[in-house]
């Protein structure tokens, strides 16, 4: 059960609210929490130590900001510091003056080099390059075949003169590939090498030989986001063995926090260039330090979500959705059905919720959310007549039975949905009155608060209904939400906090329009752990 850093820190500081300055003691107790959080995120111990020392240094000298409570202030420092280290210079691939540009991939076994080669190929091809994949992994059985298949999928040619499975000389293959690329007008060559351990001197020598044979313009060290404390050793071993110019972080679609990114950057100073976030060949992007910082601190990833949404939806769809939301008419079940199908296109609902700030500690509950629940709800709505969808108030007992039978659910499920829908409708109405999206200058906070209250009430109702004996917990939740809200009022004007950091502070870094009331609602959304 991992709590988010912001929650932990908030608890540390509950007794300290109102203090004007960070005392030495505050800093120390915060430092302990940050240390734990970073270690849980797999940041290597030596790096954590250095990092904490830096934070302490800065925290001591920091001017007290009246808008922030101590916890927020420390997190702000930590977040800035993280982004500074992770970001530094961001850089792009250096293309060679005389093509082909050679990119070599190196890393441990099973970090995803071959897959990354395909992704990189596709990405480069999209940018009007003519990449060539080179199968220099002759070690693992059928790695060559795998690269060929990947190349085929990405529609990128593969140079594989050797069958692999331990036969052939990878150095020779790499050397030949350059000639081949020149003859066939490929301007980028991506050399996929075998996975190797940092301590395997023979294999490291081979990697160095490949490097000397092709003189790559970029060597990418491929590392997977799940790696633990060993990241430092491995990173150093590869730096000494072959050297590399940049790092590609893979498997970021899991829930590993990816502290290795920080470790490697800190130890080797090499920037992280690419992030690979899925099994599909398109799931590949340049690395965004701010997102990684939030991720390491477990603070949600709203920006990724937004970007993802932008890619998925058409402009017109968004406008339509906006107009339904903004129109004077009441929110109907049809609107909801449509919204739900749009949201579904963004991916599994649990992933989306996971990206929302403040949801980290709800991971367990989020894990329970199954997309099948959405299907069930859709089935219920689809079993209603158009009249019922427009005006659910007319749904009486016999209609309920019919709907339940029609959708293969229980009457109680239909009841639940209808009740929840009324709550949601009320909430939407309040939101429109209190600060509708798109109406500039409206203080979103009030709407947000109401919404949060409605939310709390709703959850409570749910509990009573299901006979769930968690009422006490629920009340606590309300209290906690109240507490947080009070805190937010303090932090609302601040404009430097990282996105998703609880409170009203989420707004400023976000694109205009996402400010105000929206973020606090989301963070109020969580229930406290016991």
């Amino acid at each position, binding site marked *: 059960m991992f709590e988010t850093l912001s929650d932990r820190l908030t608890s540390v500081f509950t007794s300290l609210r109102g203090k004007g300055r960070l005392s030495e003691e505050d800093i120390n107790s915060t430092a302990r929490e940050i240390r734990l959080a970073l270690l849980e995120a797999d940041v290597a111990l030596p790096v954590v130590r250095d990092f904490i020392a830096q934070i302490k240094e800065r925290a001591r000298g920091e001017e007290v900001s009246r808008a922030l409570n101590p916890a927020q202030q420390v997190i702000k420092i930590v977040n800035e510091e993280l982004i500074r280290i992770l970001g530094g210079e961001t850089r792009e691939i250096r293309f060679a003056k005389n093509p082909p540009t050679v990119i070599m991939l190196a890393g*441990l076994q099973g970090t995803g080099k071959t897959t990354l080669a395909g992704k990189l190929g596709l990405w480069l091809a999209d940018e009007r390059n003519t990449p060539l994949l080179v199968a220099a992994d002759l070690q693992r059985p059928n790695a060559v075949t795998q690269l060929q298949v990947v190349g085929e999928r990405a529609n990128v040619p593969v140079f594989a003169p050797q069958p692999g499975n331990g036969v052939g000389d990878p150095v020779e293959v790499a050397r030949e590939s350059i000639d081949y690329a020149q003859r066939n007008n490929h301007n980028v060559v991506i050399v996929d090498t075998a996975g190797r351990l940092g301590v395997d001197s023979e294999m490291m020598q081979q990697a160095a030989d490949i490097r000397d044979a092709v003189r790559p313009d970029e060597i990418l060290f491929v590392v997977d986001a799940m790696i*633990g404390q*060993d990241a430092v050793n491995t990173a150093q071993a590869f730096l000494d063995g072959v050297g590399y110019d940049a790092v590609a972080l893979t*498997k970021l*679609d899991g829930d590993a926090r990816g502290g290795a990114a920080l470790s490697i950057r800190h130890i080797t100073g090499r920037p992280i260039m690419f992030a690979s976030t899925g099994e599909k060949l398109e799931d590949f992007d340049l690395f965004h330090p701010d997102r990684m910082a939030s991720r390491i601190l477990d603070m949600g990833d709203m920006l990724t979500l937004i970007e993802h949404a932008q890619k998925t939806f058409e402009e017109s769809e968004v406008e339509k959705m906006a107009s339904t*939301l903004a129109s004077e008419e009441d929110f109907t079940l049809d609107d909801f059905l449509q919204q739900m199908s749009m949201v579904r296109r963004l991916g599994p609902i649990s992933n989306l919720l996971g990206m929302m700030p403040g949801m980290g500690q709800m991971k367990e509950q989020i894990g329970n959310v199954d997309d099948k629940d959405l299907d069930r709800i859709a089935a219920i709505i689809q079993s209603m007549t158009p009249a019922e969808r427009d005006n659910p108030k007319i749904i009486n007992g016999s209609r309920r039975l019919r709907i339940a039978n029609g959708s293969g659910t229980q009457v109680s499920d239909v009841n639940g949905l209808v009740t929840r829908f009324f*709550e949601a409708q009320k909430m939407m109405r309040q939101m429109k009155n209190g600060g509708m999206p798109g109406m500039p200058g409206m203080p979103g906070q009030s709407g947000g608060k109401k919404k949060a209250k409605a939310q709390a009430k709703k959850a409570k109702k749910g509990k009573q209904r299901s006979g769930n004996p968690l009422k006490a917990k629920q009340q606590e939740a309300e209290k906690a939400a109240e507490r947080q809200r009070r805190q937010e009022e303090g932090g609302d004007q601040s404009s430097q906090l990282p996105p998703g950091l609880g409170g009203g502070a989420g707004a400023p870094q976000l694109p205009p329009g996402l400010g105000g009331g929206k973020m606090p609602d989301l963070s109020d959304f969580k229930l406290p752990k016991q």
Partner: protein
Amino acid sequence: MDYTIFAVAIFVVAVLVFGGVFLIRPRRPDSGKEPRAGDEGGSATGTAVAEPEEKEEPGGPSAAAGTATIEEPPVAPVEIEIPPPSAGRLVRLRARLARSQSVFGQGLLNLLASDRLDEDAWEGIEDILVTSDVGVTSASQIVDGLRTKVKVLGTRSPEEVRGLLREELLAQINPELDRAVRTEPHGTRPAVIMVVGVNGTGKTTSCGKLARVLVGDGRSVVLGAADTFRAAAADQLETWGSRVGAPVIRKDEGADPASVAFDAVTRASDEGADTVIIDTAGRLHTKTGLMDELGKVKRVVEKKSQVDEVLLVLDATTGQNGLRQARVFAEVVNITGIVLTKLDGTAKGGIIVQVQRELGVPVKLVGLGEGPDDLAPFEPETFVDAILGEG
């Protein structure tokens, strides 16, 4: 303002669905039962109907080319090797393990050997445990336990402290657990082993190595290439299989992994093979859809035969995320053992301490290198001794 819309939309959906979790969930057990039973019945018959057709195909050897199930024997030119038996492998591989552990052991001993065991020394010990991915909580527990013991016993000499540390580490790894991999056939029914894990931990390689170990011990093995997703995964397994002459059941890329697994088990029981090893596609534990698919593979296999072992392959380099992986996989397919791979590197694989403690699932095998015979049964004593740099 577009962004706001998304936020609102997702939020509204979340509210309704989350409410759904609280409202619908508790009732589901009784309400969901009937339709679900029907569902399963349906899929059962579906599989059963589809099965005979596929079984007939291998029956006609000449037709093998176009069929879904490909016969292994035609690839005869590869010389079938007879791998060495499994006994005492870890001893043979200790040298290699020592390479990865020596720093750990040395550092610990240096600290323990200092005259006074002060606060710094204890913290140093804790730090060393943390650096081996044991996890902050486990590390502090081990150190606390050790501290109490040292205080109670009044031990001072490094030798004794070291003995205590060995005990403490052993206790964490719990040598009492049954670490045997159940590979013996039950009468005519073969033993079924499923290998699961996230991407890139070495599942296919471990399957291949395990097949070698079993063949080395005189068993007959059938491999099921239920990794129909990753490019060339089935080829990779086939290469392993052909080395030891184990038939590999495979289908086209993108085929239903459950049907491959089912076919593999069917084939094994028809041929009277001793053990079936099913290699599954790597999947991140966060992908609900893929985890459901894995659950299905297991359920479908269970229609034919009981699944004796579900081995989770964990990479020794994995950090704290390993625990979450294990937790989710345990929930979905009820893992019975862990294979710790890539232990020949600098990584220490300390995460297994946490995994074992939380889930009680023992580490059964360790992978110690790229060589075909670098898979050994896990022996806690030898493992700890190697950590402490003994023998």
